[in-house]
Every structure is written in structure tokens, then in C-alpha cells.
């Protein structure tokens, strides 16, 4: 046993977890530092001759400068904040609808075999269709406004959330339901106090998995028929080979996805503290 582990052994569990967590975070930080280091090295950052030309990969410094410039002057007549806000609005509305409708639909499918028999087949049938292929159709049906964009984002997210919510209900242990039944609980009580809380961990997993799909669909949604949005910014900038603008937009989208994932993880761990501790 080394001196360090010896020291750890004297501490209580919470403190040990804390220290180990800090070490993990340090490693994570180092990973990002290494990526940034390699990026700086191959692009030169104005200090030496770049290995990769700026048109293909601008240096981190150039990207930071572009970001600063976009902050002040905006992009194509609109502020950077506007582009981010518009994309966030499309994404968040689609997501909120998916959660507000998809979770209850999934819960009902998981609880009632009849509802499942009615609702699940159409959802499963639609699921394999690539939703981006439906975008032209959505444009015809719902116009070139935000509605068609919200729908194309919601289209793959909704079945995912509904199906994972259904699975979450269906995987609640029979013993827990039986225990509640033998304690005199009504069907409604069992739903509200057993099935609902017990399926929360699975519901959260479904939501978090679909965040990345939602961000992907954002790019698809802003492919055509729009003149704002962060993905549109990346797409149009690419046409003019403004790689640094593309990178700023991509990084913002990455940050958006990552931030949302962390947000839901935070909500998850504070609500479903019992998960995985059966």
C-alpha cells in the first residue's frame, strides 16, 4: 500500500469519493488541454508555419478572435445572440413538446395493454423513416416558418422518449407492484406512487439520449428555408469557406448539447437519488 492510498483508507467514504472525483476531473481537464495543445501545434497560431492551412483548420486563437468579432458585429445582419436564441427556441420547443406529450403517452403505453396495442404500432412503424427525408414534406405541410423546423426536430425525438418511457414502466419490478397491491393500494395509487417514481430513471435516460439526436436534427432543420439560427450560420459560412465561423458555430452547438446533457443529469441526480442502488 502506498502512502497515498494509506491516507485514503483513513478517510470516510464521502471524502474519498470527493478526492477521487477531483482526480477524475483533473484527468478530464488534461484531455481537453491535450486536444487544445495539438490543435495549436498543427495550426501554428501565428507563431510558426501551420501544418494545416487555416482554410481547412483555423488556429484556436483565430477561432477565438472570430468568436469575439461575431459577438460584436453579429453574422449576416443579426447578432450572434439572436442566432443562438432562435436555434435554442426551435430546439427547446420541440423538446418540451416531446417531453410533455411523449412521457405521458409512454407511461400510458406501459400501463395499459390496450393503449399500447393502439399507439405503439404506428410509432414503431414511423421510427425507421429518416426524418430528414420528410423535411420537404414538412415544409409543404407546415410552411417555411418555425413550425416545420420544430416538427422535424420533434419527429425522431418523440418516439424515442415515448418508447423509452414505456420500457421504463414495463421494467418496474413485479415485486414492488405486488407489494403495493397487498398493502391495499388502488390502481391509481400504484400508478402515482410506484410506477411513476420507479420509472423516472429510465425516463431521464431516454431524454438524455435524445438530446444529441435533437441537436443533430437542428442542423437538418436549418438546412433550408431560414435566414437565422446557429446551424444555418455554420452551413452558410461553409459555402464561403469561412471555416473559423463554421467552427465557432459547431463549438456553440457542442456546448449547447453538452450543457443540456449536464442540466438533465443534474435534475436527474437530484430527483432520482436512489437510482442503481436497489
Amino acid at each position: 500500500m502506498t502512502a497515498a492510498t494509506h491516507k485514503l483508507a483513513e478517510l470516510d467514504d464521502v471524502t474519498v469519493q470527493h478526492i477521487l472525483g477531483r482526480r477524475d476531473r483533473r484527468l478530464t481537464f488534461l484531455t481537453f488541454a491535450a486536444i487544445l495543445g495539438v490543435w495549436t501545434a498543427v495550426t501554428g497560431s501565428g507563431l510558426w508555419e501551420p501544418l494545416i492551412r487555416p482554410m481547412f483548420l483555423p488556429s484556436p486563437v483565430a477561432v477565438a478572435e472570430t468568436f469575439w468579432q461575431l459577438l460584436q458585429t453579429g453574422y449576416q445582419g443579426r447578432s450572434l445572440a439572436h442566432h443562438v436564441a432562435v436555434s435554442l427556441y426551435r430546439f427547446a420547443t420541440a423538446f418540451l413538446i416531446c417531453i410533455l406529450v411523449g412521457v405521458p403517452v409512454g407511461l400510458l403505453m406501459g400501463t395499459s395493454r390496450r393503449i399500447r396495442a393502439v399507439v405503439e404500432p404506428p410509432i414503431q412503424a414511423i421510427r425507421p423513416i429518416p426524418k430528414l427525408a420528410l423535411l420537404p414534406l414538412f415544409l409543404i405541410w407546415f410552411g417555411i416558418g418555425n413550425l416545420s423546423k420544430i416538427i422535424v426536430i420533434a419527429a425522431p425525438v418523440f418516439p424515442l422518449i415515448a418508447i423509452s418511457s414505456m420500457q421504463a414502466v414495463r421494467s418496474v419490478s413485479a415485486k414492488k407492484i405486488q407489494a403495493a397491491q397487498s398493502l391495499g393500494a388502488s390502481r391509481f395509487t400504484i400508478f402515482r406512487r410506484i410506477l411513476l417514481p420507479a420509472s423516472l430513471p429510465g425516463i431521464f435516460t431516454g431524454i438524455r439520449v435524445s438530446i444529441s439526436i435533437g441537436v443533430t436534427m437542428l442542423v437538418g432543420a436549418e438546412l433550408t428555408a431560414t435566414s437565422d439560427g446557429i446551424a444555418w450560420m455554420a452551413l452558410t459560412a461553409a459555402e464561403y469557406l469561412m471555416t473559423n465561423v463554421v467552427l465557432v458555430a459547431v463549438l456553440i452547438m457542442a456546448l449547447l448539447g453538452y450543457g443540456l446533457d449536464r442540466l438533465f443529469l443534474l435534475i436527474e441526480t437530484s430527483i432520482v437519488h436512489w437510482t442503481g442502488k436497489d
Partner: protein
Amino acid sequence: MMIEPIDLRQPRHGTPPKLQVEQLSKSFGSSSGSVQALAPFDLSVEAGDFLCVVGPSGCGKTTLLNIVAGFESPTSGSVYVDGKPVTGPGADRGVVFQQGALFNWMTILDNVAFGPRSTGFSQSVARQKAMELLELVGLSAFAKKYPYQLSGGMQQRVGIARALANNPQMLLMDEPFAALDQQTRELLQEEIRSIWQRTNKTILWITHSIEEALLLATHIIVMTARPGRTKASFVSPFARSSDPHVASSMEFAAAKRTIFQLLRGEAKQAQQMEEVP
């Protein structure tokens, strides 16, 4: 003090028994044909009896308990509690499971209060009842904790308190201590014995431990290998003994041997059935 053979198929007093099982059978269908878990099975349990069912694994002990609890319906035959047919789960029969049946998202207190809350008591009355039961099982200091913060033995105590919270006259216990270590199991056996003696509940207890059966039960049923039926039934004196060392007595050892020999043949047969599907 010896275990004596007794016929537990018919009521032993003139009055209707607490639990009456009549010609109960259960088959499970599968694509490869149906498997009979329980042969037509008769059983009569009087109020205040502590009945242990021992049998080889897969003999249908748990199926029997699940049908009495109302979780499964029989293929044929019927079950009566206080003369009324069982049609589903009910608060008149408290169930204690082996493991993993506590509600992880509720505190210990709310787990135990769940029964009274579900049967119409207000939150405060339900919690008060729960607190009394937590005191009974020595866990009142842990009321605000969650199940995963407790040891396996403590969790089973919570399970017992929760089953008692509706004050059911009958308790159904499905190998509740099987997953616990020896010391914890012995302590809990003593506890359940004293709870039974104080409250005079009727208990149906499934176990594969002969020792546990002899220590706790007033009546013991030994079941055959699948399809389960009664191989032998006994009335046992040890549960009412005041001798704390009763388990090390000669009589206890003799009784253990008697049941062990009965079970051995059945266990071998059960094993062969598993090997030849």
C-alpha cells in the same frame, strides 16, 4: 418434545379455518408444453398457526404463496380466507418478500406508512402508525433514511414492519431471510417469533431451511418435488418452547433428521428433473 404427524388438509376445529386451500393446482403454459407446478393441494391453517412450508427448489412453494396472496390465479381449485374466496391481493394478507420489494424512492417511514395511507388513513395518522412499527422492529432512528442506506437485515425488518402496518391477521412470508447472513438471520428469527407470540398472527412461511422451520413453526409441511403436493405434515413443539437453547437439544436434532430424510429424496428428484428438461 417431538414433532408429530398431523393431517393439515381438513379444518381441525369445528369453525371455518383462517385459511383453507381446496384442490389447488397450477400449471404454467409455455411453447414447449405446460408444466404443472402444484398438484391438487389441500391445506387448512387455523388462526394463530405458524405454518412453515419446506420443499425442494421448484416444488411450487412460492406459487402456493403467490396464489394465497392473490398475485396469481390458480388453474383449478380455490383459496378461502375467513371463509371468503380470494380473488386478488388484499390488505388482509400482509406479504413479506425475499428482497428488493421496498420502495427505494420513499423514506423508511413512508415505506411503512404506505399501507395505512393506501387504506384511507391521513398522512399524519399513517406516519404515526409507521413510527410505532419502526419502534417495534428497532428502526425508529432510521425513519428518515432511504432503503439503500440500510443493511440487508434492516431492509427485511422494514419489510416486516411495512407488512404489519395494515394490521393484517395473516402474514405471508416468502423466504424473507434467505439472503441474509447467519447471525442476522438468527436475530430476525427471534424477532419474528416474539412478534408472532405477542400479536397472535397467522403466518404462512416459505423456507428451504429445516432449522428455521423447526424453530419458528407450530406446523410444518414438507412438499414433494414438482408438481408440489404434501409429502408429510407435522405439528412442532419447538416454537412455543421457552428454552433459548432449544435448537441444540437432542429432540430438535432428531426432528431435523426426520425432515431432512424426507426432503433428501425429493431434492434428488427435483435435481434430476432440472437435468432432464
